[in-house]
């Protein structure tokens, strides 16, 4: 674990500890479970977003993908009573992967800035969602119990939602450290020219990053549906910026080249812990957003300070070497 993740971990513990001192109920199992479930979805989206951000791209379409895949799965359950729960998850992932593939294709083949492509997809996907939803909602009655159980049941006291996301984070975290293809993502993001000279197939890698981000957002849609047990046209609206905020708090550089999925997931947990802590401390929940914003700015400034310090120490080391 790098210093950065440790730092966020400490921050989570401190916020948690202080809140518990103030209100003992905060450390109750139910409260912790709620905290984990709440953070899980953003953490999951943060994993995909990290892959994309690391390559110096961005995916703004994740919120819309959550909404669309959640509705499609809900609608399928509504019209096919006997549909197996697993099929719901698969459909959700496929829906997300298709949109992610479109994002990746347009970005790499047409060489259009991903911010513009995924911003356009944010609108298009939300529009398709509106076309499908057409003013209706999916209510809890039409979703199988076994599916919504994923949203509220626990295993050894840990919510299934958190377990699923933890597995994804662990898998992606391992892959991002150890697989050659994922190390390529960092190379592409930190120095595209050098990456090209090193023979890295940048377009294919960036495409894969968008594909995975889309697929995870699709899975996020299924989890959203399981958690809320209902969905209308607004599901997932505005998630994109929250997810990017969690990544940035977690130390993922917005201009690519550095950051880990664990950091992004911890960033999501920290933001949600602060949210819940404010509620538990009976501070008006109106303070949530302002504190989250201030925290985000602090995290960015801290990262900058850290990188300047590292650069300076590297420089002085080089100077010392030359003097010898």
């Amino acid at each position, binding site marked *: 674990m790098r210093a950065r993740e440790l730092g966020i971990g400490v921050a989570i513990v401190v916020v948690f500890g202080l809140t518990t001192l103030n209100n003992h109920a905060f450390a109750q199992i139910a409260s912790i479970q709620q905290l984990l479930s709440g953070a899980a979805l953003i953490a999951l989206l943060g994993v995909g977003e990290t892959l994309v951000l690391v390559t110096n791209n961005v995916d703004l379409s994740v919120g819309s993908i959550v909404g669309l895949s959640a509705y499609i799965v809900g609608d399928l359950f509504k019209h096919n009573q006997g549909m197996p729960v697993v099929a719901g998850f698969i459909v959700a992932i496929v829906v997300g992967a298709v949109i992610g593939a479109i994002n990746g294709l347009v970005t790499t083949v047409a*060489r259009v800035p991903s911010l513009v492509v995924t911003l356009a997809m944010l609108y298009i996907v939300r529009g398709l969602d509106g*076309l499908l939803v057409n003013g209706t909602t999916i209510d809890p009655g039409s979703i199988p119990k076994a599916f919504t159980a994923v949203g509220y049941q626990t295993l050894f006291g840990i919510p299934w939602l958190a377990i699923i996301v933890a597995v994804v984070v662990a898998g992606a975290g391992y892959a991002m450290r150890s697989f050659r293809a994922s190390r390529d993502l960092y190379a592409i993001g930190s120095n595209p020219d050098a990456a090209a000279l090193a023979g890295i197939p940048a377009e294919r890698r960036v495409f894969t990053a968008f594909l995975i981000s889309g697929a995870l957002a699709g899975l996020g849609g299924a989890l959203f549906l399981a958690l809320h047990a209902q969905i209308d046209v607004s599901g997932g609206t505005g998630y994109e*910026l929250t997810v990017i905020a969690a990544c940035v708090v977690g130390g993922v550089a917005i201009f690519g080249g550095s950051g880990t999925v664990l950091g992004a997931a911890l960033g999501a947990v920290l933001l949600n812990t602060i949210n819940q802590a404010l509620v538990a401390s009976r501070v008006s929940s109106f303070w949530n957003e302002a504190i989250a*914003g201030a925290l985000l700015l602090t995290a960015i400034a801290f990262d900058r300070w850290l990188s300047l310090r590292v650069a300076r120490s590297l420089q002085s080391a080089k100077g010392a070497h030359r003097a010898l």
Partner: protein
Amino acid sequence: MTTGHNDAAKGGRALWRGLVRWESALVIVLIGVMIFGSIQTPNFLNPTNFFYTGLNMGEVAIMALPLTLIIMTGEIDLSVASMLGLSGAVMGELFSNGWPIWLAIAAALVVGAIGGAINGVLVAKVGLPSIAVTIGTLTLYRGLALILLAPRTITGFPASLTQIGVVPIPGTEVAYSTAVFLALAVVTGIILHATPLGRGLVVIGLQPEAAKFAGIRVNRIKIWLYVVSGIVCAFAGILLTLKNASVSYDAGTGLELNVVALVLFGGVSIFGGRGTIVGVVLSVAILGTLQQALTQMNVQPEVQNIVSGGLLLISVVIPNSGEAIRRIRDRARRRV
């Protein structure tokens, strides 16, 4: 060296050609949208529709102008809609505490200037990435509006001012916000295209290092751009408050991406250095007219998103498609 020089010259010419083409394409699209609207609804091009289109687009369009200048320098401001919300909240809170309306409006503008200055200093002086900073202040400013106003909705603004949301400028069919937008567009256009400052913005966007060596005060210009953006967004917040004759903390939530889309559809490059105010004005006209046409056809707002998103996607893909096809063909040939 010679190839580099040739490339630059070719790039320059292609750029110029691209610009001419993009704005003319937008004019054609605008005419197309007007024809489409006229076919769908009889008497579509009437003054009342023009008034309502202007009223609907007003705030977003106004915020797009300073954002254009910021994007020209290669930066971005995602806090615009939160700034709009915060200024409305400040104005509403002070007014409800008995401040005279004009003082409340002035205070909202000052808050806009301060908010913009915070963005500017963090981006230009501290050197933080603008996309991250302004996502931070997007959350922060909306949060401050929340603390200030939630869960109240402030009403009771003087009717002499709130009438801007109901009636056009006397003797015309022009909404007040349309007039403000057009006046600001002229000013922004002159600054961008006809002053040394405007040329400076283009250079900053194309070659930040070169701009610094050419003696352009890059940091100072960026800070001032953000301050201006803050003030203009605050002004848009005041207009929105008066138009609605009420304000709550969540006014304009999520509009930031609409504003960005408007600028990009106008042909402004997200990487900076390329774009025109004429393009942005045309973009406003097209999306406003289209929205009006679709609304009259009873198309729900979510579905209208498909059209806006599709246009945005097409607007960036088409200018790049020639090169992309050439690249794909080259690759296929190399494989054979």
